[in-house]
């Protein structure tokens, strides 16, 4: 996000009406759990979302366990902060992670725009860009399976898949999502780019490499989906209520 409006900053244009809670929730649809590659809304992680008449937005997030990985938790809180504070009419943003062993460090760190390493002083030396990129590459692999499996089921053989460009593949939400993930990583995402690429390098795949690549893409998707299944089950066990925008799977 560029130029986020920070807490208490006067940069919100005067006279802009505050967004409704529904608009804020819609903005949170763009925030994903980096590990599960799904919006925090549909996962059920948003427990409340309010905006005052003055444009003060408050979002409360919840996670499946007290010990969910703090690095991913930090990214979600920080991304939610950025998404909400960028909305026109939002004067101040507060994002609160509830019921987590590192709630204080994460909430305080995000509010102070301190970055991850400073929020966990002494416990972390690096920021989380590489971690996020690793998981984006997994999302690209899983997304490749999502796009290619229906094609394979329709009889498109691996060499023919390898010859397709993104522009030639049948349009679908899955294809759009794959393009977005590739673009986020700086990988080729235009119409002329090959459908199948090595997510580490962006290079096209040789015919020999295609069957194994597709097999690995499928395993990656199964892994992410199974993990999301466990997370959903534990969240449900922990809270017993639906989050805002939660979608049953």
């Amino acid at each position, binding site marked *: 996000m560029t130029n986020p409006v920070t807490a208490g900053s006067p940069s919100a244009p005067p006279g802009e009406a505050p967004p409704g809670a529904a608009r804020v929730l819609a903005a949170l649809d763009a925030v994903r759990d980096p590990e599960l590659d799904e919006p925090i809304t549909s996962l059920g992680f948003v427990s409340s979302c309010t905006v005052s008449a003055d444009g003060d937005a408050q979002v409360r997030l919840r996670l499946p366990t007290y010990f969910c990985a*703090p*690095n991913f938790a930090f990214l979600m809180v920080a991304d939610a902060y950025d998404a909400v504070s960028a909305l026109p009419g939002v004067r101040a943003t507060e994002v609160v992670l509830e019921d987590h062993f590192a709630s204080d460090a994460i909430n305080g760190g995000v509010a102070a725009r301190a970055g991850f390493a400073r929020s966990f002083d002494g416990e972390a030396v690096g920021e989380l860009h590489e971690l996020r990129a690793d998981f984006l590459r997994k999302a690209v692999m899983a997304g490749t399976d999502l796009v290619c499996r229906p094609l394979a089921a329709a009889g498109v053989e691996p060499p023919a898949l390898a010859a397709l460009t993104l522009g030639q593949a049948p349009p679908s939400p899955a294809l759009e999502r794959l393009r977005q993930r590739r673009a986020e990583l700086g990988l080729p995402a235009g119409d002329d780019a090959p459908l199948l690429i090595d997510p580490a390098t962006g290079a096209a795949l040789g015919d020999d490499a295609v069957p194994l690549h597709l097999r690995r893409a499928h395993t990656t998707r199964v892994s992410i989906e199974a993990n999301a299944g466990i997370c959903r089950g534990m969240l449900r066990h922990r809270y017993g209520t639906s989050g805002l925008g939660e979608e049953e799977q």
Partner: protein
Amino acid sequence: MYEKDGEKYFVVDGHMHYWNAAPDNWVPGAEQYAKGWIECFHAYQGLGPPATHWTIEHFQKYSEEDLMKDVFEDGYVDVAIFQPTYLKEWYKEGFNTTERNALMGEKHPGKFIYNTRWDPRDGDAGIEQLRKNVERFGSKGCKLYSAEWNAGSRGWKLTDPAAYRYLEACQELGVKNIHVHKGPTIWPLDKDAFDVSDVDHAATDFQDLNFIVEHVGLPRIEDFCFMATQEPNVYAGLAVVIGGLMHARPKFFAKVMGELLFWVGEDKMLFGSDYAIWEPKWQVEGFVDWEMPDDPSLTDYPRMNTASKKKIMGLNAAKLYDIKVPDEYQLKDGTPGAHEVLGGQPEEHAASGA
């Protein structure tokens, strides 16, 4: 022992615990972590069938009698392998230490195997302790938590030179089964704590040792699979896979089993209940009954037969731990179980050191 449709299954529970996480064992000042930890475990239990859920009070501290009934009397288990988890910074006497396990187990000769643990950051003293533990408890395996925080150190890798010293000691002491926790973890905070590449290297360098990746690297099953398929001495520990998915997410259970059967294979998969997170009874019954569903999305996965299930339920682990399995439980056609990396004759299993 479990019997179904005239088939007899020798059951080795490769991953279970005897813990005390009740308030009487919480370290003052760390109560919120001790409480949070056990509540987190308890939430995993929520993924099992509702009739098997416990109250949090019971879950925090169950008795020896509870364990013997749940695991052996009701749960069909023939031999259970204790995997210790220390967590002494949160639990005064540890969460479940080798000592606690052995104190209980020695009253029930032949039922338990006591794995121990080590941490390469403990230096020479740790190696000495490992020797003592092996002598005292007869440990043939150990459970490692490489992501554990320790006095300012942010975890370690099996490939660290200090860890290689311990692996060499394991080789010398006959601790040949290295169970590595590659599953949900907290630390180190800024890294991906599930990375399994260190297991890959260690398994190549220590061919006499077996590396059992517990929880199959969940949530990174794919990384584990791609690695395990290349290393003959890397195994899949199914704790969490069966307990966490078979009931709660049957469709994903089928897919994860399919992936494991494809990449790792039925000779290298080991049942573990993760008791007391889940009781073994429903897991054993459900797994033996389970078939890959007849679904177009699952057609390219290998199928299991009765022999596959016998291997996963106990014969593979029996081989790794030299547990003598009576003839009636062996595969009828002589199909080999886990790969024959282990020389020597199986000996009569007894809880040594008792």
